[in-house]
């Protein structure tokens, strides 16, 4: 799957549940591995931290106990980056999980908010808006009750502003989940 908000594009590929190497094997649940490959250069620390965030988010959603002693590998390739990369990765990951048919407790989506220096909220910012912003917040929001699965921020903001961003993100999540539904419906109605 390859969601592309504006010009940011991430391609997700999923393998699994499949055989896992001995050291990584978990006896009661599946091992989830996330690999994020940047477009230019070798994967660095930033990619590793993003991978961990994605892994933890996916682990809460995937019913891993149904496939013990297996490995689920999620590979994300950045095709182009024009801002809001992390939320694009989250969306790609979820659609990949959905498309692969893995058992999930709920869907999730990623929304990025940037806070202007004068306090207004910008959803889904471009790279330039991200750079000029005072704070950039990314939330992973689940589909059942719009709860927050994970949140990561860069920069400083007050608690109220964070609450406001969160509410705005939850609103945006509705749009994204509708998009998931439409695209899945389209896929199955035509093939």
């Amino acid at each position: 799957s390859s969601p592309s908000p504006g010009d940011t594009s991430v391609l997700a590929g999923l393998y699994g549940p499949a055989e896992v190497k001995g050291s990584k094997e978990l006896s009661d649940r599946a091992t989830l591995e996330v690999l994020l490959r940047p477009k230019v250069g070798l994967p660095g620390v930033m990619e590793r931290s993003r991978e961990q965030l994605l892994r933890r988010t996916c682990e809460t959603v995937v019913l891993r106990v149904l496939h013990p002693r297996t490995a689920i590998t999620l590979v994300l390739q950045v095709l182009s980056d024009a801002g809001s990369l992390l939320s694009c990765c989250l969306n790609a990951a979820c659609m990949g999980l959905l498309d692969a048919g893995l058992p999930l407790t709920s869907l999730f989506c990623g929304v990025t908010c940037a806070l202007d220096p004068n306090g207004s909220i910008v959803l889904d910012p471009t790279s330039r808006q991200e750079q000029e912003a005072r704070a950039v917040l990314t939330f992973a929001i689940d589909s059942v009750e719009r709860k927050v699965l994970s949140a990561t921020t860069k920069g400083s903001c007050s608690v109220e502003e964070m609450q406001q961003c969160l509410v705005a993100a939850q609103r945006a999540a509705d749009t994204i989940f509708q998009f998931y539904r439409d695209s899945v419906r389209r896929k199955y109605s035509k093939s």
Partner: protein
Amino acid sequence: MKATPVSNCEKRFLLRAIEERQRLDGRQCYDYRNVRISFGTEYGCCIVELGKTRILGQVSCELVPPKPNRPTEGILFFNVELSPMAAPGFEPGRQSDLLVKLNRLIERCLRNSKCVDTESLCVVAGEKVWQIRLDLHVLNHDGNIIDAASIAGIVALCHFRRPDVSVQGEEVTVYTPEERDPVPLSIHHMPICVSFAFFHQGTYLLVDPSEREECVMDGVLVIAMNKHHEICTIQSSGGIMLVKDQVLRCSKITAVKVAEMTELIQKALENDQKVRKEGGKFGFAESIPNQKITAFKRGSAAVDTNNVEEQAEEIIAKAEPPSEVFAKPILHTPGTAQIGEGIENSWGDLEESEREEAAEEEGESEAPAFECQTMETEETSTMSETKKDEPIVLSDSEEEEVVILEPQELPKKTRTQTNSKQENTSKKAFNKRRKKKRAAY
């Protein structure tokens, strides 16, 4: 993950089919699969699809000091990566033979053929030159990665634009894309690899082998040629013994194929150039959805954020921030008392507490109930009273400011005060406590 090995009956089937000049996908011996080239929004970014084999190429540049033994030449750096999504057998971080072979072939094909003019990449001799970096990511492996990679490489290099530079005496100015249009690299010729797979000890050959065919082949011959019929690289691997006229025949076939491919590349580059000039939409977001039936595209959607502030305030008001809660000290044993229930500390690990606060303030019904417990008696009734009441007027002189609290709506002016969040809730809580105090006296 381990790749599943090819079964014996599959091998036998493929070899028998090749003997009868049949291929699994119905192609002829010298037919290429469909090649599709699409470009990204950035210069130097392209995706090449050879049948189902997909390769992403990206070129980037940087100003660096040159190599000491070549002070007037720019630096070219090639990196081929087998993405784990390409095939189950590709694992991250493992230098497999295939990867090494690919890297070497691409380097020889593009660097040693001198298709890119490195002298033009020099800015200040001995001090600053351009380093051009080409990253090729194999996204899907369905055979013949070499050809696809070489096409992706040369297309990306042709498509790339580097920032314009001007040198005036000692001063070097690098212009941003907004100031001056970026400049293309100077490319002399376009070498393209063509692979030939050999079967049955060199008796049969196939052009552009698919993945299954690659598994059963004896060996492969790769010839890189440009449209002027100059052989740039030739490599035979797999240990097959080839006769001279076989090699000559292959080179003739290569000439034909390369001519076709070069034409296709030129057309693709021209199309992209045209679209960019006319200001039309370009990039993967445009090209990918139109080609797939399973793709879905949606324009930007507006999100209604009008009532965000009010809703956020409601949520904040409903839940009680932990630091505001002070219960009666609970006496456990003489000398040991506990103040507060110790739910969470607002000075803990910031990320955690933010998340917890967010989770707590999602509007759980427990929060107001908890708030009630910690205060004095008869909570719920008074709370609902205050909520449904008309504006409450405080006539007490204890409070200097008269604050009129509308139910469900907090006045905006209180937000400008310091520690406003706690003020908001405390005003409401305070109000209730005051009411009870008055009632008690």
